[in-house]
């Protein structure tokens, strides 16, 4: 047996898994070879020391008591966590549900969603006639101002619906078109309004814009 072959058998020998014939061959090689003898001696003694040496540290005597106390504490802790979960998580979950319902998550799309401000702005922009817009040079800011006012009025009309989930539930059939109709309806009283209540009451609003609104 060569040293390489002997080295390959070391693990099996140390684990007691070597067949008697191979163990005999390894033993014979060990007698002849000082290097292999040394290597095996190191491994055997190392194993012996690792197995029989005292532990470096030991647990303190009251470990079991402390652990049991900790387990009792944990048991109470679970109860407390459950109660806290009910107290805190319950209202939070309810608030989340109301919030989601408010945003129209539970509306499957057949009914209208409660519109976000951005959506209302874009819808209103689609139906506001150009004729109510201010002069071309001031069109951008004038349009924004008009939309702001329309939005405020629209929001006022929806206040009742927004204040409670129940009222929102009772008005699920509010479609985008209906909302726009409402917005147009809101626009109508402006015809008879005095100039200071017109959609462009700002001091910087061009006079032509005010007249355009009145024309509606």
């Amino acid at each position, binding site marked *: 047996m060569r040293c390489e072959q002997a080295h390959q058998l070391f693990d099996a020998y140390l684990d007691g898994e070597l067949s008697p014939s191979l163990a005999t061959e390894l033993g014979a090689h060990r007698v002849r070879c000082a290097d292999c003898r040394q290597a095996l001696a190191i491994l055997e003694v190392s194993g012996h020391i690792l197995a029989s040496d005292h532990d470096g540290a030991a647990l303190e005597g009251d*470990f079991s008591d402390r652990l*049991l106390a900790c387990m009792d504490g944990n048991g109470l802790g679970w109860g407390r966590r459950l109660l806290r979960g009910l107290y805190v998580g319950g209202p939070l979950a309810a608030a989340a549900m109301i919030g989601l319902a408010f945003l129209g998550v539970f509306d499957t799309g057949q009914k209208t969603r409660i519109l976000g401000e951005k959506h209302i702005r874009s819808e209103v922009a689609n139906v506001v006639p150009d004729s109510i817009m201010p002069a071309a040079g001031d069109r951008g800011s004038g349009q924004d101002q008009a939309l702001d006012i329309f939005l405020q009025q629209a929001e006022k009309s929806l206040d009742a619906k927004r204040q409670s989930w129940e009222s929102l539930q009772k008005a699920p059939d509010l479609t985008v078109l209906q909302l726009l109709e409402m917005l147009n309806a809101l626009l109508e009283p402006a015809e008879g309004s005095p100039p200071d209540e017109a959609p462009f009451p700002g001091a910087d609003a061009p006079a032509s814009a005010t007249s355009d609104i009145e024309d509606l």
Partner: protein
Amino acid sequence: MSGCSGTLSREHEKLLIGRARSGDRAAVRELIDLHKDRLFAFIWRMVFNYHDAEDICQDAFLKAFASLDTFSSEYRFSTWLFTIGYRVCLNRIRRRKALTGEMDFASLAGSGSDAASATLQSEEAGQIRDLIWKAVDRLGAPQRATIVLFYRHEQSCQEIARVLQLPIATVKSHLHRARARLRESLESLGEKDLLHLRNLSA
């Protein structure tokens, strides 16, 4: 090594676990008392710090008892407990590495020299013993766990594979590499030391 777990019959262990599942405090205490020393000895060899080892030991017991319903009586309770302990150890070692960079095992090792050796009384023998333990402490976590479980806790490769949740072939490979590292570390020993070793091993 307490050896208590070795004398605990499977039937008695099953009985204790059944009682512990139903909330029997005495059974829980008995299970703790039977396994705490061996588990702590193993964990201490993994983390080299008394307080960390105690924390991990406590954590392992808490996790084990919290999920006792999932324990399969196909395995020994000690195997299951060591598996949990080893996992907690690995997490702790990884966290420590993340905080402090690569761990210098050599600087942490050596606290084992505080304990008196039952087998090695002389100063020379003590030095060799320290050399061996330092070599073990320098091993990576899986190799160290393998060699400690194999020699100190007399677990078979199959049991170690269950504890470390590795294939048996991997465990044998870890054992082989760990022995090779031990041999390399101790090859510097002179003739006198070797003679000493041979006398000790005889």
